[in-house]
């Protein structure tokens, strides 16, 4: 995605002295006289994707530094390189002014760099103390359990992270387990602590406590670097923010000198619209109405919060938002896969809230899920069978499968949607992403659908396939289908939607008609800020 316009000033990379001097103007500038970490020109390529592209990163000693970016921006890759899990293809790293090259996390921790992963690496049936010293090569053959207990307890007290060294891991809450991970790293001598999305698994109260402890550790002279895609916590906690997008560093800025809105713009870029022909249609009647919908995520936290939306026939309603603001839960709630905590889903005048996936399919709600491989298709079944994943039930034949109908339907769909495959008997796991998406669209659009929920329908596709998908959506719009387009791609939302709703923390921040939906306003709303003068 080309980056142009208002935010060009953020894109001067590789950065030089200008921004480096800025990073040192924080509130405790005096304490940050030197850099804990200097990464220069770090690149890392995985098959098919350049995860890090000549990345420079400076982290001042004793500071709290946030690494902000959308999913897939390259944050985790960069941190895995810094913590010794990956080796960079090119580039150099310095830790405390010494040039380092880590072959393993062990090397990293010896240099004072420790990482707390999103998924904890603890032995559930052992005690806290045992976990903390597990794998610590400084221990000899002989272990003195009581001495270890005391050391671990003392370590916890000293860093403000009180934990009972005798507690068994499985008895601990998620927040406490995270504390054990942190103490483990501190015990190993980490002077730089990397935290990968530390609040992802925490309740808001646990997160607040964690923030206090992190501030305390920084006061005590440790350096903290945390990965996040949540603006709130970045603004609340970080002194310096580095924003990444598509494998590159967009900029590094002091938190005090940047607004949420600017951060969002840096995260999502400034989109150039797709060239999509939008046939003029008369918007139809209200078809789907969400009333005060409340939905929880897998961890039991509120993900969709008292949300209301109306969707009309012959309309594409785009939902823009930073990833993880409730989009997935919203889609699953409408399509019957996720239980509602409250609210109503009114389809054509009838409340269908609480209906299961099977009933929703029968009611004409089609769904293009975000996860093509794991939700949208059965990988080892054939193309033909995947076309029929939902249709088989209502096809003729009673208890028996309508194999001949299945075959003729498949042949027709294969031709109509131009799926490039050797035959309709080929398992779908052998298809490319674009062709797999065509199979899903063919299936979802070939029914008597009334509502289409499309989640990031073009993610990871090439330009030609994107064009096809967009045309298919437009065709359905003309046919009278009400389309809810959930996409992390602002470019796509702005190009296709009749109206754009912006979601933030599971709430709709505002709904704009296409003509008034500019990237600036949307960006502010995505950051959770309602611009002055905007009608709500």
């Amino acid at each position, binding site marked *: 995605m080309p980056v142009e316009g208002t935010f060009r000033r953020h894109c001067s990379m590789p950065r030089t002295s200008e921004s480096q001097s800025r990073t040192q103007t924080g509130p405790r500038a005096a304490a940050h006289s030197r850099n804990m970490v200097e990464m220069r020109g770090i690149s890392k390529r995985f098959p098919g994707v350049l995860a890090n592209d000549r990345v420079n990163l400076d982290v001042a000693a004793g500071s709290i530094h946030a690494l902000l970016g959308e999913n897939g921006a390259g944050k985790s890759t960069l941190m895995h390189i810094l913590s010794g899990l990956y080796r960079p293809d090119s580039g150099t790293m310095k830790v405390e002014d010494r040039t380092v090259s880590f072959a393993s996390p062990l090397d990293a921790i010896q240099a004072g760099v420790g990482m707390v992963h999103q998924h904890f690496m603890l032995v559930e049936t052992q005690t806290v103390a045992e976990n903390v010293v597990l794998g610590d090569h400084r221990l000899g053959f002989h272990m003195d359990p009581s001495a270890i207990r005391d050391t671990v307890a003392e370590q916890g007290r000293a860093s403000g992270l009180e934990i009972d060294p005798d507690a068994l891991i499985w008895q601990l809450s998620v927040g406490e387990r995270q504390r054990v991970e942190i103490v483990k790293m501190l015990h190993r001598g980490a002077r730089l602590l990397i935290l990968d999305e530390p609040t992802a698994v925490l309740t808001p109260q646990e997160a607040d406590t964690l923030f206090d402890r992190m501030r305390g550790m920084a006061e005590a002279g440790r350096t903290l670097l945390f990965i996040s895609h949540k603006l709130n916590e970045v603004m609340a906690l970080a002194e310096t923010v580095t924003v990444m997008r598509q494998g590159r560093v967009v900029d590094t800025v002091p938190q005090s000198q940047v607004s949420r809105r600017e951060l969002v713009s840096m995260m999502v870029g400034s989109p150039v619209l797709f060239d999509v022909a939008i046939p003029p249609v008369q918007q139809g009647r209200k078809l789907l109405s969400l009333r005060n919908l409340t939905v929880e995520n897998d961890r039991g936290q509120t993900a969709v919060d008292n949300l209301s939306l109306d969707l009309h026939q012959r309309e594409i309603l785009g939902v823009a938002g930073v990833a993880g603001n409730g989009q997935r839960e919203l889609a699953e709630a409408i399509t019957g*896969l996720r239980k509602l905590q409250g609210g109503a889903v009114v389809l054509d005048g009838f409340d269908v809230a609480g209906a*299961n*996936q*099977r009933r*929703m*399919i*029968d009611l004409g709600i089609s*769904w293009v*899920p975000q996860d093509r491989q*794991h*939700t*949208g*298709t*059965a*990988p*080892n*079944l054939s193309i033909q*069978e995947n076309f*029929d*994943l*939902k249709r*088989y*039930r209502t096809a003729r*034949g009673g*208890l*028996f*499968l309508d*194999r001949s109908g299945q075959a003729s339907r498949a042949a027709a769909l294969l031709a109509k949607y131009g799926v490039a495959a050797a035959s309709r008997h*080929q*398992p779908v796991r*052998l298809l490319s992403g674009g062709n797999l998406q065509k199979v899903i669209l063919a299936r979802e659009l070939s029914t008597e659908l009334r509502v289409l929920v499309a989640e990031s329908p073009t993610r990871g596709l090439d330009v030609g396939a994107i064009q096809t998908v967009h045309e298919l959506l437009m065709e359905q719009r003309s046919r009278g289908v009400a389309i809810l387009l959930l996409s992390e791609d602002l470019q796509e939302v702005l190009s296709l939607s009749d109206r754009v709703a912006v979601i933030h923390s599971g709430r709709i921040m505002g709904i704009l008609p296409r003509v008034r939906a500019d990237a600036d306003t949307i960006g502010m709303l995505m950051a959770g800020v309602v611009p002055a003068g905007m009608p709500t």
Partner: protein
Amino acid sequence: MTGSTVPGVVPASRLRLRLEAREQPGLPTHLAVSLLLLLAALLLAGTVMTVAGGNPLDVYRSMFGAAFGSRWGLNDTLIKMVPLALASLGVALAFRMKMWNIGAEGQLLMGALAASGIALFAVPPDMPRLPALALMAAAGAAGGAAWAVVPGWLRAQFGVNEIISTLMLNYVALSIVQFFVYGPWGERGFGLTPMFERHTWLPRLTDFADQWSALRGLTLHLGILAVPVAIACLAILLERTKFGFEIAMVGDNPDAARYAGVRLRRTMIIVMALSGALAGLAGMSEVSGVVHRLLEHISPGYGYTAIIVAWLGRFNPLAVAVVAFLFGGLIVGADEIQSAGISSLLQGVILFVMVSGNLLIRYRIRLRPPEAMR
């Protein structure tokens, strides 16, 4: 690579084995690889026999002769095949959906118990043979199904691991059978019930010796008719019905199945019930067709062998029945050479070789010099 050799010459030490994926292995590949692996297994087991001082060729020859060489041998092999095939088909059905039902043994025992209860207490002496047998078969299937539905329901409702629960229920089932044969239904503490009335016996070939004298002495019972019926029903269920399509979906990707509107819990419970019913039928056919009473050792581990058979038959009904026939022969052949260890040795080695050799079906092995590996 730090190549320091003459160009074009690759030292043998640098040749590497490389696995290359076959795109879609066809039936000829399956058969060829399976045959190859069977030979490898016989070779491996033969090596063990040689080390133990035996002559594997003699052993194999007399085993083969005993199992397949005469109509008496074939009779015995088919008798062993019936419970094996029925239980294996049940196991294969559950495995298709990645429900790891390893409780066929317990389900078989419960089926035998239920059928015996009917035969001993519920069938009036003047009842004709057909309804009596139908009643026993229904009870056998129901007993096996009930024993399988419990872990199926626990898995569907609470996510309880069915491997553990089905395995544990095997021991519970054995204890229950022991309780009945030593206790209330037992005959003088010998671990067996009284003989059933004749009209609850499955007819044997020898019963028709009056019409066809060639059948005299052949003890094969008509329970064997259940095998082709079960194969056909299962094949139709899996390949031709909507429910079979749902099983395929759940087996391949439960999330996609849920997304497609399949009612996962219901599907799991029904599949477990059918799986257990087949094992239960195996138990019924053993008590009614072979021993004509319930005893503690009604199954010499048919339910466990069924897991191996189902696996080797790749959960395909017809292939499973063929493997069951071969394994029936293996049991008879091993009885012949009077060495109890041989049967389990061969079963174990065959399974081991087949399972670890499985990757040969999906990959071919190539010998490549390191330069070409890039």
